[in-house]
């Protein structure tokens, strides 16, 4: 039966290894019926963008708890654009102060989920906003 499955990537850019949230989320996405590619920790934006294209995911969820999101999140979006993959949605999560939201939205991050966001709300957001390619 033809069926477009939602494919997502959970990625951890930067050097922090706090992957509790990313891993819990990856499992939760699987249980929501998505196919989830997980990159592991310590990824460069280049690795993430290139993996996202190779895997043809609809969405990349970036998790960063080190404060480097201001540099790393926009870089991923920019690289995807350069590689002609601006249709891949990028969302972010982690320790991100509200004052950084505008610059991240401006840079093309479509949604930001911070500590305490319920997993269901993230899944809901994806189901509402992502039409598989």
């Amino acid at each position, binding site marked *: *039966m033809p069926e477009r499955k939602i494919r997502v990537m959970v990625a951890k850019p930067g050097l922090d290894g706090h992957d509790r949230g990313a891993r819990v989320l990856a499992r939760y996405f699987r249980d929501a*019926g*998505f196919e989830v590619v*997980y990159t592991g920790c310590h990824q460069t934006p280049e*690795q993430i963008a290139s993996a996202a294209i*190779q*895997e043809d995911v609809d969405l990349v969820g970036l998790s960063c708890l080190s404060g480097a999101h201001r540099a790393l999140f926009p870089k991923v979006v920019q690289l995807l654009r350069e590689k002609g993959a601006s249709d891949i949605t990028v969302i972010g999560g982690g320790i991100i102060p509200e004052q950084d939201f505008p610059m991240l939205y401006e840079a093309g991050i479509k949604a930001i989920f911070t500590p305490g966001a319920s997993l269901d709300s993230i899944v809901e957001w994806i189901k509402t906003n992502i039409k598989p390619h």
Partner: protein
Amino acid sequence: MDSLVKKICAGDVRLASRLIRDIEDKLPEAKAKIKKLYAYTGKSFIIGITGAPGAGKSTLTDALIAALRKKNKTVGVLAVDPTSPFTGGAILGDRIRMQRHAEDAGVFVRSLATRGALGGLSHAAGDAIHVMEAMGKDIIIVETVGIGQQEIDIINHAHSVVVVLVPGMGDEIQTMKAGLMEIADVFVVNKANRPGTNQLQTELASMLNLASKNGKGWQPPIVMVGDAFEPGAFAEKIAELERKIEEHHKYLIESGKLTERMHRKAMAEINDALSACLLEPVIQKLASTGELDSFAEKIKSRKADPYTVAEEIAKNYFIRQDKK
């Protein structure tokens, strides 16, 4: 040349990955695209890697990629992970161990979920290989799901099959049970610094002796790979593995076995295509009209048996279509 074909043959990763996805999702247009691509496939050398979970398949694949890249070979990897039967979702985690190659344009790693397939691969694996072949990859590595079931679909797709075992996991017995002895062209005893290594090696060697009494043809070699964390020694062992695989490839060509395997592969492809072109559309149609459910009801209440139902469906669909 069709523009899609042209682009994929030129190595366009985006289009290739999308086409693989169309195949996975069984979009009708995917078949048409594969038809056009088919003429450009068949030139890659395909290595299957199989073995129990935790055997270290992804780490070996990663190391093989590195070794092949040193020789300037382009590499495609299909890494298969299980789909949850409860939710339909999957975590595709194999590529984590290969991420260091993510930026290398000569390497294309694509993860596949089994989506209910039981033979260790995904239904899309065969055509995904075709896509990577059309892209001109010199080598394609197919890593099976490794849940320890009857993962022998790989022999229908790969030229050389590497079976990975680990000491101390009772693998010897598992291997025999799963029929992996018969499909292995090269054995890897991985993590061969662990207790039980000698025992595993001995048992494996004696099993191989038994299997090859006539002593003719290919004798599957055993490559002992130690701790992945001793960079020097590990790299040497991977080079040995790569050599053994290459020797096997040569053997296939020289002995004429390659044509045998290609024949087997073609048969399997016909089988898959028949299922995709005949069976699946029928089931789809039956499902959409609700007939499938009513047949199931009949069988459930023992008003009919599955064979009669199947014959009736065949009569209605195939025979009627024949007459048209």
